[in-house]
């Protein structure tokens, strides 16, 4: 077993374990901070999938942006959220959770079936990519190529998403402003 594989299993364990804690924990703050750990584990998995730029973006945007936003929303929505969270029953599989648990478990079975039936490692285009040496190399960075592609092949989506980000910004600011006096 090589070092890369061991690292992969460690990262996968961290990711899935902390995601499970997010699901099980009754304490909302603890859930949010375990979500933090999940995101870091996922960034590690991205590095192991040879996508270092995506991993850095994940850390900057998710951990730096989204998580801070979630914490803000949690603090601004007051103590009632905490009280409501305490009131939930303390067991993982309680009566209210059985439908959710069943749904998730059955979905897991279906998707595992799909993954094993799909025979991913022998997909035609994957084989072709390996044959034509179109695989990201382990020892070089692809960031240069990402930048060039972003400004040529993916220029239109890049511009569209910038407009969409501005719309989201304006929309969020508009939604969260104080209402006018007559409202």
């Amino acid at each position, binding site marked *: 077993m090589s070092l890369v594989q061991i690292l992969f299993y460690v990262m996968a364990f961290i990711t899935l374990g902390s995601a499970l804690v997010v699901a099980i924990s009754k304490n909302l703050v603890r859930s949010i901070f375990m979500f933090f750990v999940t995101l870091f584990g996922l960034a590690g998995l991205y590095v192991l*999938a040879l996508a270092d730029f995506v991993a850095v973006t994940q850390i900057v945007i998710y951990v730096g942006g989204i998580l801070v936003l979630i914490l803000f929303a949690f603090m601004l929505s007051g103590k*009632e959220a905490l009280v409501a969270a305490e009131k939930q029953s303390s067991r993982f599989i309680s009566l209210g959770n059985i439908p*959710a648990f069943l749904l998730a478990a059955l979905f897991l079975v279906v998707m595992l079936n799909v993954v094993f039936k799909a025979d991913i490692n022998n997909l035609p285009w994957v084989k072709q990519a390996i044959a034509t040496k179109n695989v990201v190399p382990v020892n070089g960075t692809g960031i240069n190529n990402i930048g060039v592609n972003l400004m040529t092949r993916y220029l239109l989506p890049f511009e569209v998403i910038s407009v969409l980000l501005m719309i989201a910004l304006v929309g*969020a600011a508009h939604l969260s402003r104080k209402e006018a006096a007559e409202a």
Partner: protein
Amino acid sequence: MINLNDFMLVSVVLFCIGLFIIVSKKNAIMILIGIELMLNAAILNLVAFGKYDRINNGGQMFALFAIVLAAATTAVALAIILNVYRRYKTINPDKINQLKD
């Protein structure tokens, strides 16, 4: 090297945990976290397959756009949650049952 199946398995389990959180939790913020987990499971797949596209970087590019879209979605969703809290004094989605006051 790690093969694609391993990444797929991790992402399938992550997706199902996200689904469980969305259906079982009684708190809008937790539901948002569940949605983020499912999104991240999808992004993990994109990145894992993106390894086999060195020239066009299709998978990694799509993953980057998905991350940015997730950020935009979260900002708007949290603004909505704050508004809902201001009006109903709760963020339990089961108790929010009026479109109009």
